[in-house]
C-alpha cells in the first residue's frame, strides 16, 4: 500500500516536540529522535542537537527496514523494539504506529528498564498524534488543497538557476 504524503502543521509539531522533550527528562535520555520509516527526520530533542541527525534518520530507517525483513523471514510481522548496546552510549528504537520510529539514545545516567518503561507511554501518545495527523492531512487535501498547488514552473526552474 502506497503511503500518503506526510504534512505536519506547527501545532502538531509542537505536540510531538512536547512529548519527546518530556521523554528526555523522564527517561534521563541524551537524545531523542522521531524518524519516519522512509528515513525523514520528523523531530528531535535532548542534548545531542549538534549531531548529524539527517544521517541518523536515514540509517535508522535502513536498520529498521532490514530488521523488518529479517522478521518476516523468521515468521514475525516485525520486531517492534531494537536495542543496540555500546560502551558508553546505547540506542533504543521502537516502532510507533505503522510509519514512525522513536529513537532514544542514553548512557549510564539511565537504564534499559527505565527507557523501555517511559518509551511505552510516550510511544502510545505519539502514535495517537500521528494517526490524527494522517487523518487531518487526508481531509485537508480534499477540502482545501495543498499550498503547493500554486507553485509555478518558474518557481521550479529558479531552484536550478545556478
Amino acid at each position: 500500500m502506497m503511503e500518503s504524503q506526510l504534512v505536519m502543521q506547527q501545532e502538531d509539531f509542537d505536540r510531538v516536540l512536547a512529548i519527546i522533550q518530556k521523554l528526555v527528562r523522564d527517561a534521563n535520555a541524551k537524545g531523542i529522535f522521531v524518524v519516519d520509516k522512509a528515513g525523514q527526520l520528523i523531530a528531535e530533542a535532548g542534548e545531542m542537537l549538534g549531531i548529524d541527525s539527517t544521517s541518523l534518520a536515514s540509517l535508522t530507517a535502513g536498520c529498521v527496514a532490514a530488521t523488518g525483513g529479517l522478521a518476516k523471514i523468521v515468521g514475525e510481522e516485525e520486531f517492534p523494539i531494537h536495542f543496540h548496546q555500546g560502551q558508553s552510549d546505547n540506542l533504543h528504537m521502537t516502532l510507533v504506529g505503522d510509519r514512525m520510529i522513536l529513537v532514544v539514545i542514553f548512557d549510564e545516567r539511565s537504564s534499559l528498564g527505565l527507557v523501555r518503561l517511559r518509551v511505552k507511554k510516550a510511544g502510545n501518545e505519539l502514535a495517537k498524534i500521528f494517526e490524527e495527523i494522517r487523518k487531518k492531512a487526508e481531509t485537508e487535501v480534499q477540502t482545501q488543497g495543498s499550498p503547493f498547488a500554486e507553485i509555478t514552473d518558474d518557481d521550479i526552474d529558479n531552484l536550478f538557476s545556478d
Partner: protein
Amino acid sequence: MSFINYSSREINCKIVYYGPGLCGKTTNLQHIYLKTNPDVKGKMISLATETERTLFFDFLPLALGEIRGFKTRFHLYTVPGQVFYDASRKLILKGVDGVVFVADSQIERMEANLESLDNLKVNLKEQGYDLDKIPYVIQYNKRDLPNAAPLEEMRKLCNPTGAPEFEACATTGEGVFETLKAVAKGVLADLKKMGN
C-alpha cells in the same frame, strides 16, 4: 512520500537511483557530492562491501533552495544493483518520490538493464507504485565507452514509454546534474499536481 513540515517550513523528498550492478549509481552520487557546495549538501553515507560494491544503500542529502518560502530538501539514495540483493532494493524504495533508472550503455549489459528495469517495476508495484505514474527519468550512462550501444537501440529497449532521458558519463560528470534536475523537477511538479 514527501514530508511537508510547516514548523520548519521544509519539503523533504526521496529520490532513488536504480539500475543493474556496476551501472554507475554510486558514481552519480559521488559526482553530485563532489561538485556541490558544502552548505548545500550533508554527509554522504555509503554502506558498501570492502570491494566498494554497494551492500545496502548510498545516501546523500541535498538542500536545493527555497520555493514559496519552503526549503526543499532532496534525499538521494542508491540501491545495491547486484541481483541477489533484491530484498534490500525493496526496502529502499519505501516512500520514494522519484526514480532515476541508470542504464549501462555497454551492449553486453543490455540484458542486465532490462532485468533490472523489470525488477524495478515489480518492486514498485509491491509498494503500491506504478512506474508510469511517478516522476521517473532514465540515464544512459557510460556513453563514452567504445562498446556503447546506439542510443536508438537503448531508447527502444529501455524507454518504450518515452520518459525524460539523458546521456551521461558519470565518471566525468557529464549528464549527472541534468538527470538530477529532471527528476527533482518531476517530483516538485508532482507535488504541485497533488495540490490541485
